[in-house]
C-alpha cells in the first residue's frame, strides 16, 4: 500500500535526519569561522572570538527559521488576550501568551516535548528550563570542548526563540545556560529578556 503523498503541516521526515542536518549546520559554521591566525592577537583570544562568531552564525540561521515557522504554527492559533486593559498589564499578558506558545507549540515541533518549567518576573524576563534536551543527551560531560560545542548547538534553539518572539512583535535577547554542569549537558535553560 502506498502512503499518501502529503505536503504541508502534516508531513514529516525522520527525527535523525533533522538532527544530522542541524549537526552539519553547526559543523559548517565551525569550519567556516576558524580562528584567525593573526599574530597580533594571542591564541586564546582568537579562539574565543571564533567561538562567538560560530554562535552568532548558528543563531542567525535559527532566527530565520524561528521567524518563518512561527508564521506557519500561529496560523490557526487563537490568542487568549483580554482586550481593553490597562496597557502595562496588557503588554505583560501578551508577552506571557507568546512565551507560552513558544513553550508548547514551538517546542513540541522542535523536540517533540514541551518545556519543563517556565518562570517569569512579569516584567519582561522569562526563564525556560528544559531538563532533558534531546540533542544534548549524547554530549560527554566534563570535557571542555563539549561545553563549547554544546553552546554552539544551543545557539540554534536560541535563535529560533528570538525569531519566534520577533515575529510575534516582541524584540528580545536570548541566552542559554547549563543547569547541571558536571552531570548532564541535556539540562539547560533559556533566558529571555524582552527589550
Amino acid at each position: 500500500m502506498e502512503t499518501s503523498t502529503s505536503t504541508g503541516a502534516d508531513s514529516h521526515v525522520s527525527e535523525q535526519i533533522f538532527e544530522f542536518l542541524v549537526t552539519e549546520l553547526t559543523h559548517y559554521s565551525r569550519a567556516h569561522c576558524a580562528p584567525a591566525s593573526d599574530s597580533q592577537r594571542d591564541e586564546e583570544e582568537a579562539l574565543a572570538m571564533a567561538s562567538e562568531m560560530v554562535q552568532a552564525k548558528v543563531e542567525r540561521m535559527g532566527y530565520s527559521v524561528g521567524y518563518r515557522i512561527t508564521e506557519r504554527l500561529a496560523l490557526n492559533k487563537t490568542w487568549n488576550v483580554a482586550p481593553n486593559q490597562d496597557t502595562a498589564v496588557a503588554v505583560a499578558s501578551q508577552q506571557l501568551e507568546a512565551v507560552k506558545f513558544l513553550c508548547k507549540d514551538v517546542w513540541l515541533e522542535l523536540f517533540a516535548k514541551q518545556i519543563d518549567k517556565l518562570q517569569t518576573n512579569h516584567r519582561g524576563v522569562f526563564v525556560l528550563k528544559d531538563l532533558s534536551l534531546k540533542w544534548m543527551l549524547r554530549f560527554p560531560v566534563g570535557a571542555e570542548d563539549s561545553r563549547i560545542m554544546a553552546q554552539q548547538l544551543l545557539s540554534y534553539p536560541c535563535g529560533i526563540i528570538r525569531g519566534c518572539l520577533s515575529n510575534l512583535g516582541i524584540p528580545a535577547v536570548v541566552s542559554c545556560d547549563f543547569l547541571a554542569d558536571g552531570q548532564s549537558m541535556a539540562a539547560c535553560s533559556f533566558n529571555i529578556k524582552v527589550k
Partner: protein
Amino acid sequence: MASKSWSPTYLANQLWAKQPKANAELFALTYGALVAELVRDLETNDKIQAELDRMGHSMGIRSVEEFLAKASLEPQSQTAVTCSQFKDTSDVLKMALKMFLGITTEAGVQEDSHFSIQFAENPLSLFVELPPDRSDLEYSQLLCGYVRGMLEMLQFDVTVTMAQSVLRGDEVNEMRVDLNQVLQAGAGDDYQEE
C-alpha cells in the same frame, strides 16, 4: 507466506511507520536557512554545491549505521534483501530514503552500472523557488551527497547527479546513480589482525 512477498515498498513503509518523526517544514526551513548562509559565504554555485555535497555525504555515512541496525536485512530474517548486483541497491536505497526522508520513490532506469530513482515530493525544496540569478544552483545537491555517502559505506563508489528536478521546471525529481567502482572490503594492508 513466502519471503519473496516482502516487497521493498512494503518494507519501506513499515520502517517509516516505526521512525520517530520531525516536522518536515522545520526541516525544509532549516535547510533553506543553511543554503542561504552558504550563498552569502561562498558565492559561486560550484562551491555551494560542493559544500552541500560534503554535508550530505557525512549525513549519509551516519544514516547507514542507523539503517542497518533497524532494517534487519540479515539473510536469516524474513525480510532478506540482498544486494548481489549493483542494481539491487536501488531497492535498499528506496527503503532508506523512505525511512529517513519519508519520500516514496519509483525506480527509473535499471542498468548494470547505473540506475535512477524518481520521486515526486522533495522535503528539501518545500516552499522553495529559485531566484533568476541562481536558477542554475542545484538546490538539492545535499541529497546526491547523501546517497553517495550511504553507498560508499556499502563499498560502492558512485557518482550521483540530479537528472531532473522539479525546481528547474521538470515534471519529477530524478536522481541518477552511476557506479564508478566497487571498493575493496576490509581495512587494507595497514591493518594486521593480531
